[in-house]
Each structure stands twice: as structure tokens, then as C-alpha cells.
């Protein structure tokens, strides 16, 4: 039913105006920034409540949780408005060629699952690159595939990003009807919402509101809550951006409370590592808490737990600083 609607809307709106590249880029930018925002919020929460195990778990599988949320949100939007959340936000709608099947599934596959896979690969690459650089030992076959992946992946990434740029330029010049990879792959174009389509969306909104099934109802109310939050959030964010750029010279107060300084454990002497309790080798500072460890000890712990061994502040390998002092060699 929803699919038939989707195709109809596509056919009727083929004559609607072609959106500008800036509108498309803005909507793409919003689409891409929601997941990092979600991750950032989780990280903030984790800083506040660093002994909560539920949050630890949520943060560890943050990509997967976001995938679930994103899938339910976008499928609701695709069914109701023929568009992703970010596209509807910028007044765009997706139109398919009428001979294409499963338009919603295709959209979800290329706009939600593909970016998830890319994000996961990016993370795998990041961790492998570091383990290659550290020379963490593994078996021969693993070692080979690890090296191979680390060498080849940057090219895949370059091609992926290059295609995006190429499509955006081609679209601007009017040579391509697709402006990005996900729409090209799904074989759909984005158009401005027409008044005709608008009324159709409202009808569909009403219909889904009156449906008696429980599960779609839950997803819908969840999607609506999220939508409301994101829409107000986006407006407030835009407003603040605007306001802050006008009043940049005025010093803003700190946006979050500065956490209490950690208690210094007298056991931790000036030369031993708090983890292995031996003399520190390759002294490394964890900048988030200010403690100094052996490089090997702290890296191993951070990879497993993602927090400072002493203060439990969330941390990763990026906040490590190698210390070069005259006393240590």
C-alpha cells in the first residue's frame, strides 16, 4: 500500500522544480551530523555518570543503537513523506522511476545501512592502523590481511568521497540528476515538495494516526517524539548559531560544570606506573586526567575500557601524550 503511494507520488511530481545544490548539501549535512550528535550526547552523559554500566554499554554499541533508531525514524518518514527526515526538513521529497520495486527498502539500504557500514569500516581501519603502528603481535594470516586492509582502505575511502564530489559537481552543472551516491544507487531524484504532494502527506499522516496496529503505532509515536525533538533542536541550534555569530565578542559562560578534581592516590609514586606498579616505561600522559603511565599499560586498558584507569573519565588513545623528560630515558 505504502509502496504504491510512493510510486504514485513519484510519477505525479516529476514536473516539480529541481532543488538547488545548496539545499541538497544542507540536507545531506544534517543527515550526516545527527549520528555524531547522538554519540556526543552519549559521551557527555557518560562523563556525568561514569559508573553507569547501562551507559557504558550504550556508548560501546552506539553505532548499532543509532542504526535501530535511524531505521525506524527514516522508515516512518519514507512511508509518510517519501523523504528522509533531513530531506523533509529542507522541504524535499524523493521521486522514483515507476518501474522500480521496493523504493523504501532501497532508500533505507543506501541512505541508512550503507553509511553505517562505512562508519564501521572507518572505525575498524582506525583501530587496525594503530595496532599495526604499535606492532601488536597476531598470527601470520591475520598480520597479512591487517596490513593489506590498512594499505588498501585509504584508496577505497578516497574513491567513495571522490564520487560524492564528482556527483555534486555534475549535478550543479546539470549533467547528472543525482547529487550523491546514495540517491544514485537507489535510482531516485530529489524534488521540491509540491502543494499537491503536501496534501497527500497530510492524508497519509492522518491514516497512520488512525491505524489500530500496535507496533507501527509505537514506532510512529517514537518517530514523532524524535522528530519534534530534532526539529525544535535544529531550529534552536540554527538560531543559536546565528545569534552567537552576531555576538561573538561576548564571553559565554561555561556550558557544562567542570568536574571535581580527582583524588590523588598517595600510592601512586613519582616514578611507578599506576597499572603495572613497576617503573614507567615510555612515559605517557593521559591528558584528560593528568596521570602518567607506561605506554603499553595505558593503551591496553583504554582499548578495553575506554576510560581513565584512575578517574573513570571517558578517554581514548587520542588523548595520550608521550612525555619526553630529561630524567627518564
Amino acid at each position, binding site marked *: 500500500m505504502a509502496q504504491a503511494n510512493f510510486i504514485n507520488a513519484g510519477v505525479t511530481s516529476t514536473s516539480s522544480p529541481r532543488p538547488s545544490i545548496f539545499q541538497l548539501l544542507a540536507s545531506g549535512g544534517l543527515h550526516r551530523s545527527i549520528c555524531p550528535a547522538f554519540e556526543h550526547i552519549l559521551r557527555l552523559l557518560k562523563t556525568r555518570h561514569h*559508573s553507569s554500566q547501562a551507559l557504558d554499554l550504550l556508548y560501546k554499541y552506539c553505532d548499532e543503537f543509532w542504526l535501530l533508531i535511524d531505521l525506524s525514524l527514516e522508515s516512518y518518514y519514507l512511508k509518510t513523506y517519501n523523504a528522509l527526515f533531513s530531506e523533509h526538513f529542507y522541504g524535499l521529497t524523493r521521486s522514483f522511476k515507476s518501474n522500480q520495486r521496493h523504493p523504501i527498502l532501497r532508500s533505507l539500504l543506501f541512505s541508512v545501512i550503507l553509511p553505517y557500514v562505512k562508519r564501521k569500516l572507518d572505525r575498524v581501519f582506525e583501530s587496525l592502523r594503530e595496532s599495526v603502528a604499535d606492532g601488536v603481535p597476531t598470527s601470520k594470516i591475520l598480520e597479512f590481511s591487517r596490513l593489506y586492509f590498512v594499505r588498501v582502505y585509504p584508496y577505497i575511502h578516497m574513491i567513495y568521497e571522490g564520487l560524492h564530489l564528482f556527483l555534486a559537481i555534475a549535478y550543479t552543472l546539470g549533467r547528472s540528476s543525482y547529487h550523491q551516491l546514495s540517491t544514485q544507487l537507489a535510482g531516485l531524484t530529489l524534488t521540491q515538495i509540491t502543494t499537491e504532494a503536501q496534501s497527500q502527506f497530510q492524508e497519509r499522516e492522518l491514516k497512520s494516526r488512525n491505524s489500530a496496529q500496535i507496533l507501527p503505532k509505537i514506532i510512529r509515536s517514537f518517530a514523532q517524539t524524535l522528530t519534534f525533538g530534532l526539529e525544535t533542536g535544529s531550529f534552536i541550534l540554527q538560531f543559536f548559531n546565528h545569534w552567537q555569530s552576531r555576538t561573538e565578542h561576548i564571553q559565554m559562560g561555561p556550558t557544562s560544570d567542570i568536574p571535581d578534581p580527582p583524588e590523588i592516590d598517595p600510592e601512586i609514586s613519582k616514578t611507578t606506573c599506576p597499572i*603495572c606498579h613497576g617503573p614507567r616505561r615510555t612515559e605517557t600522559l593521559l591528558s584528560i586526567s593528568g596521570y602518567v603511565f607506561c605506554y603499553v599499560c595505558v593503551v591496553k586498558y583504554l582499548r578495553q575500557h575506554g576510560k581513565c584507569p584512575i578517574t573513570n573519565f571517558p578517554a581514548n588513545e587520542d588523548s595520550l601524550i608521550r612525555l619526553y623528560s630529561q630524567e627518564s630515558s
Partner: protein
Amino acid sequence: MSTAARRRLMRDFKRLQEDPPAGVSGAPGENNIMVWNAVIFGPHDTPFEDGTFKLTMEFSEEYPNKPPVVKFLSKMFHPNIYADGGICLDILQNRWSPTYDVSAILTSIQSLLSDPNPNSPANSMAAQLFKENRREYEKRVKACVEQSWCDD
């Protein structure tokens, strides 16, 4: 074989010998440094006074990034100790930090004996008696203390 965990356990042992904390002792097993035997003496001015309670500590190769599994071998009657000897102590579970060593673990367990936390009970009977009938609680603990002298 020398691994990070084994080197660290050797250091823990050295520290335990050089700077022994009052009322606890421990040593690695004869042919396996990853399994320790320990004794905690019941703290003074508590019903556990004069008891000699035996424990085992099992370390994994991930120590000190992961806590050891610590269990009482002696029979215990305490709100936070399970019937099988397992211990409900935050620093041995979610509040573990790799900065702790064997001596810190043993002293924490010792202070758990004097300050039970009846709000997270592992032995509901002990927790209830501790809160409502302190005399009966002390009687049951005393029985454990006497038993701790006999078992070997």
C-alpha cells in the same frame, strides 16, 4: 613464562612481603602464580574478631585490567558474602580499577567484614539479622569464627 599479569603479581607479592598490611596475608600457590591463597584475620572490636578466614584469589592473564575472582573457603555469615563464598564488593566488580593490588583487595575485604552493606545483600538472612536482631547476628558470626579455627 613472563607476561604482564605475572610480572605484576610478582610485584604485588613483593609489596605484600615488604609492607605487610595489618591482619591480612597472602601468597601465590606453589606451582601457579595465578592462583593465590590468602588469610584475613577478623578485625578487632567486631564479631569477626579472632577468626582466621581463608580465601582463594584466581587471576586471569588480563589482570590488572580485570579483577581477580575472590572467594572465601571458610564458611562465612555476612550480609555481602554468598553461601558459596563469593563476595559482593563493588571494587571486585563494576568499580574495579587497575590501580588496585592484592594488598588493596585484601584490606578492602577486611573492612567489608567490619562494615557490611545490608542494602545489597548476598545473604538475605544475614542482612535481615544485621538490621533487626544484632544479637542473633553476632551469635551466628561467632559460630563461623569458631569453625574457622578447625577447618584446614
